[in-house]
């Protein structure tokens, strides 16, 4: 792929890309959905950065705003009802949020591509998979139908789809779940994007297939050097592949840092709750401890720290005062007033 790589322009529209700037930087992103019954605050001030070769995991339960964040970065939020009310999304220093739609579209697929949770529904059922991959090349690279199909076969092989040549004319429903996700990955990588956002790429798959897909993503990332954003609620999936993690709750980041640090020494009660609610053979715990209570209603986010109604370490201050992100150790941040106590108690356990 590197040999016949298409030279991409070093600008988006009129705006030059800054090679020194981070590949992707999201700052203070706010997204809300204005529904008839009220306003859903889906993302409330999210910030993170991503560099080449880096894998960032965005971790959170359903409704934590992790997928909406990805849609905001891609610029595919339906407006109305969704609005990005604040913040900035920069690709190599170029602000994406105020690009006109045509330029925004040129970023999608070329610079930032995305794969989805359920690859069956993410592929068009009426066209063969080869046709769908080839179309990317026909539209964006001006290749002929035949050349497009050759590229499709090449990409399917890169996504380790066996017998790619024989299967290029098969339809999505003729593939197994794992194979479909490989097709989706092949399609997303067709234009050699700088960033791949994977929105729960393995949630709909068997455990063994999950591992294969994660392995594939890791290998492809090593080949291309792309930045990878993994959106998931599955701690196990990210532990193997991610470099850094952002833990989200109620549309905010509650903890962020290097994955092993966060994994072994969580500094926020919510992260601790997540760790305790998954089976860990290395810790020999007797029972799993679920996080009590319900995920927050994003139309009525609790006052103060949004996690306080479910927090074991809650104090009066948590109800009234919104905690800001405090540095635990360098880039390691936690949005808890009492992160020191929380960590200390955890260490003694």
């Amino acid at each position, binding site marked *: 792929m590197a040999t016949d790589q298409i030279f991409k322009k070093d600008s988006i529209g009129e705006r030059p890309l800054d090679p020194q700037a981070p590949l992707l930087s999201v700052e203070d992103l706010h997204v809300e959905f204005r529904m008839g019954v009220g306003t859903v605050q889906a993302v409330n001030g999210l910030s993170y950065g991503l560099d080449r070769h880096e894998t960032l995991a965005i971790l959170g339960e359903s409704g934590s705003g992790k997928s909406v964040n990805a849609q905001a970065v*891609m610029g595919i939020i339906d407006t109305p009802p969704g609005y990005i009310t604040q913040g900035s999304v920069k690709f190599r220093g170029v602000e994406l949020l105020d690009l006109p739609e045509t330029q925004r579209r040129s970023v*999608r697929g070329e610079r930032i591509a995305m794969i*989805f949770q359920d690859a069956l529904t993410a592929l*068009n059922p009426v*066209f063969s998979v080869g046709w769908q991959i080839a179309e990317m090349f026909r539209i964006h690279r001006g290749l002929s139908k035949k050349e497009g199909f050759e590229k499709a076969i090449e990409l399917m092989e890169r996504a*380790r789809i066996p017998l790619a040549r024989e299967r290029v004319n098969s339809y999505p*429903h003729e593939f197994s779940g794992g194979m479909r996700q490989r097709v989706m990955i092949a399609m997303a990588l067709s234009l050699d994007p700088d960033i791949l956002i994977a929105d729960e790429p393995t949630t709909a798959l068997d455990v*063994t297939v999950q591992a*294969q897909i994660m392995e594939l993503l890791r290998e492809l990332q090593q080949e291309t050097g792309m930045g990878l954003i993994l959106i998931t609620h599955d701690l196990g999936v990210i532990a193997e592949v991610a470099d850094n993690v952002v833990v989200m709750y109620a549309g905010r980041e509650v903890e962020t840092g290097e994955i092993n640090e966060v994994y072994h020494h969580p500094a926020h009660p919510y992260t601790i709750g997540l760790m305790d609610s998954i089976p860990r*053979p290395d810790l020999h715990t007797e029972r799993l401890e679920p996080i009590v209570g319900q995920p927050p209603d994003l139309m009525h986010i609790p006052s103060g720290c949004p996690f306080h109604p479910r927090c074991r370490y809650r104090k009066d201050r948590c109800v009234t005062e919104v905690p800001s992100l405090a540095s635990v150790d360098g880039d390691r941040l936690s949005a808890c007033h009492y992160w020191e106590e929380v960590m200390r108690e955890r260490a003694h356990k």
Partner: protein
Amino acid sequence: MTEPFNEGTPTPLEAVEGLKTGPEASLWSDAWRQLRRRPMFIISAFLVVLMMLIALFPGLFNFSGYDPRDCPLAVDGVPNVRLGPSAEHWFGTDLLGCDYYARVIYGARVSISIGIIVTVFSTLVSLVFGSIAGYYGGFIDTFIARITDVVFAIPVILGGILILSLFRQRGILLVSVVLIVLGWPTMLRLARSSVLSVKENEYVDAARALGASNFRIIRRHILPNSLAPVIVYATITVGVIISAEAALSFLGVGLQLPAISWGLMLAAAQNRLRTDPHLLLFPGLFLSITVFAFILLGDALRDALDPRLR
């Protein structure tokens, strides 16, 4: 916990399991394979094809060889009008002495062309505006929906009588235009709702996330996937429009003589039911068979194209 079982390469088992080297199985080829085995489809398709051939090449089917417009009132001094069916005149003759078989055969062209013209244009209008309304939503959707509601409120036959009675000269074109103008709303609603449901699919988001334009999304993703119900309904519509044309002609506001149309034949025969039932029977039979064939074909297509009925 998610230790890779297998470094990089997929398990051979999955490769074998997922492998199919049989014929391609898209929605349409799948539907075709289903249809081929259904008697309902075979019968209706045969009738539709037959009627289309009659409409296209009436000369080939005019076995008796009479000219439908050469109508002697008497042959060799013997009256030639209102004869019953015989070996000479299979369907008998009409009030003016025309060979009724020839007239019925030539009548197919008008009925079927109006049915197809009206359906093709209503379908185009519905697909274009239905996908715009369904895909973009918002103001444009409301605008199109209100216009649709207004036209939808006018009954086709009543509106047809009203509009057509304003014209003195009424040909195929005028009748078709009136039926298009009055007939598109149902189909547009169907197309719009179909687009709305297809729009929610993840592959539409996926296409957008990979840089597809709105036009491309509509053309490649929305339309092909929302076409099936529209095609089914369009097939049925051909039958409905054919009977609407016959009804309008029967009521005297559709086509005019000297056009040859089943509706006009029925109109001319209406007072002769007791004395000459064949004048009503033959055009009525052909009309019914044609309408029935298109509606049956629509049903067969629906069964084959609707995955929920499998």
